[in-house]
């Protein structure tokens, strides 16, 4: 059974628009179709040697979530938290 423990460690970083962005990728669900890699406007993602998606250039990510919405395997989730929201909290 696949649980959230299979999520690879998320990467926390600041994107170009001062957002806190976290990529949650369920490696086991990814089938390596390459759709996310191709259509990422900033070319943040890559397929590794095992044909699984990895976040290669996290600092380039704008948090647009196109990879998440177009993933046929529901393997990517992009958590975007705006800086000012954080401050408000």
């Amino acid at each position, binding site marked *: *059974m*696949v*649980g959230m423990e299979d999520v690879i460690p998320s990467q926390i970083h600041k994107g170009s628009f001062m957002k806190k962005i976290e990529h949650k990728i*369920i490696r*086991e*669900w*990814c*089938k*390596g*179709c*390459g*759709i996310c890699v*191709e*259509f990422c406007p900033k070319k943040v993602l890559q397929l590794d040697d095992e044909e699984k998606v990895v976040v290669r250039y996290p600092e380039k990510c704008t948090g647009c979530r*196109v990879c998440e*919405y*177009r*993933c*046929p*395997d*529901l*393997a990517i*989730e992009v958590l975007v938290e705006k800086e000012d929201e954080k401050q408000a909290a």
Partner: protein
Amino acid sequence: MGYSIKDYIRKRFFPHIWCPGCGHGIILNNMLRAIAELGISKNEIVMVSGIGCSSRISGYVDFHSLHTLHGRALAFATGVKLSRPNLYVIVPMGDGDALAIGGNHFIHACRRNIDLTAIVMNNRIYGMTGGQFSPLSGKEIKATTAPYSNVDPSFDTVNLAIAAGATFVARTTTYHFNEIKEYIKKAITHKGFSVVEILTQCPTHFGRRNNLGGPVDMLKFFRDNTALLGSKKIKQNPDLIPRGIFVEKQLPEYTEEYERIKKRVKQK
């Protein structure tokens, strides 16, 4: 948005059965976004599917799920909806499922204007059985049962649904994920029979056999060969496949009309 579509799936069945790059997963993804944004309770949703690659979608969602017979999903769904009109009944179907073996049920559900949401996942092929042509494949297409190219003309799902009386009819593609979400949201909230046709890629059987490349190339095809209704792009090139909402109108809905009859009869 403060939701995760993971709350709407049965995680233990993932990774799912579909091939790498199959568009059906993109439809599942954005259909769940639509449902999450509408905030409908999972207990109020019944998902009814038929047979084929598309039909497996109902097993992955954490709703009441009914995986039925090839082509008959709408007939089962009609029974569910008429019996319990308060439920949201969503019916994802493949192209062969909806329009070949299920074609008669499809046009009659349109005609009744019963409040179901039909999602036609159109990959122009029978994938589960190995790549035979469907009524949406179209001429010149190659399939295992059309090895020398297909002589069968195809249906236009949108025109068929409109002619048969559906009161919400939309079309988009798996490239246009936000349109999937928005159209399905509108279709679910629309009172009456709604049809959302989503062009989706089958890289394994349709793409490969017709030299269309992999899933990425097929998505680019959808991007480059379709255009929104009324857009400049489609005016300049009318041969593009139109996307958008073709019909959205209010007409008497079947279960409401039947409830009215029941009230009238009881008053006597």
